[in-house]
């Protein structure tokens, strides 16, 4: 066992899997000599050589497009997009090819590849370095979208993503990259994609979050429990295909739902969770299913970003209102 941060767990997962499978290659901007601007790929080039870990020219569209070509050619590419705010030039490749190749060819060609990217705000970063647009990817048929929130989950989910026969968008909560350490096994292990984690059992409210916002969600859950409010905290972990069963079981038990995330509200992740729950657990809901999310506004530059972020006490406050709700 080793105590790792999330970013170290990313590196560890890559190390472990590249050792296991020589068809894995990893590339992107500053991924080689530099080891990534966040150090996710540090030492990989030294260890596995320039053919397996390297810098590409500056073009996200071609990074993803060539990775798909490599995947069809028998490799298993794991590419890095330096910040999720720079994945948009690759949107066409993702939505018209990566996500469709299996379906288009009826399984003759597939896209086993991972697109890694740091996402989330709250680190006083430059414009477009604080994006949380996971819902966009959730809406694209044919790709999986995974977001870990702990070092342990990061390693297990990234290894699952790499071994997956389908393309996975792997979004890393950069606000938590170095926030804390956790014991992580040295060997390879997997955590299934498509399964949420129950972080804290509870009976009065289902609180769902994921990724970067899990920190505040955990703090809020603890504060609520201190206050005598028993919140069940679910870490969604997979945005698509998300874990309906776990969500529904919890909401059927608690009757109350709060979904928390950073990305914009309208057409966001919480909308999907709530729409699904409102239909499939209609008779169980005892209070309006509620979202506490980023606004439908552009993520502010650092000086005002705290206005955009969801803070722990805001979750507590909202949760209390939901629990107090009487029809």
């Amino acid at each position, binding site marked *: 066992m080793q105590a790792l941060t999330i970013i170290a767990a990313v590196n560890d997962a890559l190390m472990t899997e590249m050792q296991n499978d020589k068809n894995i*290659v990893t590339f992107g901007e500053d991924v080689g000599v530099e080891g990534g601007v966040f150090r996710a790929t540090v030492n990989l080039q030294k260890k596995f050589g320039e*053919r397996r870990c390297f810098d*590409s*020219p500056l*073009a996200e*569209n*071609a990074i*993803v*497009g*060539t*990775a*798909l*070509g*490599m*995947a*069809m*050619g*028998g*490799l298993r*590419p794991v590419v890095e997009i330096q910040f999720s705010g720079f994945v948009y*030039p690759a949107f*066409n*490749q993702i939505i*018209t*090819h990566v996500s469709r190749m*299996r*379906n*288009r*060819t*009826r*399984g*003759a*060609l*597939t896209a086993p590849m991972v697109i890694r990217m740091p996402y989330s705000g709250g680190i006083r970063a430059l414009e477009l370095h604080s994006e949380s647009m996971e819902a966009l990817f959730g809406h694209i*048929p*044919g790709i*999986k979208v995974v977001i870990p929130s702990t070092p342990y989950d990061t390693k297990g989910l990234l290894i699952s993503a790499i071994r997956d*026969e*389908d393309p996975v968008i792997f979004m890393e909560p950069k606000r938590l990259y170095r926030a804390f350490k956790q014991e992580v096994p040295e060997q390879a292990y997997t955590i299934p994609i*498509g399964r949420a984690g129950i972080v804290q059992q509870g009976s009065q409210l289902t609180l769902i979050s994921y990724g970067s916002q899990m920190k505040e969600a955990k703090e809020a859950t603890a504060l609520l429990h201190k206050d005598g409010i028993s919140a069940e905290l679910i870490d969604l972990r997979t945005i*698509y*295909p*998300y874990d*309906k*069963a776990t969500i529904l079981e919890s909401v059927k038990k608690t009757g109350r739902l709060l979904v928390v995330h950073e990305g914009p509200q309208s057409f966001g992740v919480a909308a999907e969770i709530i729409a699904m729950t409102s239909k499939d657990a209609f008779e169980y809901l005892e209070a309006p299913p509620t979202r506490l999310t980023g606004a439908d506004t552009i993520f502010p530059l650092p000086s005002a970003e705290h206005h955009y972020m969801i803070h722990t006490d805001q979750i507590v406050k909202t949760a209390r209102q939901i629990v107090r709700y009487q029809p």
Partner: protein
Amino acid sequence: MFENFDPRDGKRLQLLDENGNLNSEVKDLPLLTDIQVLQAYKTMIITREADEWAVSLNRQGRMPTYPPVKGQEANSIGSLMAVNNDDWFVQAFRELGGLLVRGVPLSMHYLYFLGNEMGSHYEPKKYHVLPISVPISSQLPHAVGLAYAELYKKTNKITLVFNGDGGTSVGDFHESLNFAGVWKAPVIFYVQNNQYAISVPRHHQTASTTIAEKAFGYGFTGVQVDGNDIFAVHAASRIAADHARKGGGPTLIEGFTYRLGAHTTADDPTRYREDEEVKEWKKKDPIIRLEKYVLNKKLITEKQIEKLKKEAKKQAHAAFEEADSFQKESLENTFRYTFKNMPPILEEQLRQRRELERGVN
């Protein structure tokens, strides 16, 4: 390698002229053997017949939108004949001839345009062909990635990828040539410059004199060939292939050609181009030209040609019937290939759709 054919000097490689005469002055270029010439000619004939049949089926209402290849056959046939059968062939969508060189059944092509995904189910190990790519030029990065994979695996396989003159304007074109240049990727970029992107003429597409010269901005060579001359197409492709296989990296080939038909069966080209222009280009038809050559060289007789065309027609008809009677895609299949294993959320949607369709059908 193409020292004598620098497009920046206004050079275009032509070996077979419009009258079917082979230029005897050009030396040291790989020529098609007589057997290959006949093979090329036959493939051109079946391509032409199959293509015209598709257009005519569309008029009969038996075929949805179809993009004709007529007039451009020499490009994909000549270049595909210059590479190995296990080199990667990355299509745009006007390379029917190339598909037939590869041995892809014509019925699959029809099946695809009949709107059935099974028409793109080329066994990769068998054909090494990527499916038709609808978003213009977006297939180019795939070619570079494939080439990288083969470099990585040290297989010595190269990649031949197509796009059109319109497609050179897309960012993917630039990024792919640039990546290939940096990676010294074994790729041939073949641009079928058929003078139009739907209605948009070549000079509205880019201000460069040729498309071939764009290669130099990426640190490699470009050459313009007469795309209606299968000897030139083949020779340039062969040189580029050898170059790539020896580790020399990519080459850009511009096939200077013309689409004799409509952009697709939904298009009316008289809106945007002059009859006169089409007439001029008809004289340069790659088939007429090669026909003159094979007759001159007595590789075939008029009678044999007549028979060949009849048989090609039959083959096309049979292939279409086969495609048309192919099993229709089921509701299940529209779900099944989204992922390797269907996740519960999709299984549920499938159940719901089945339920809904029950009331309908």
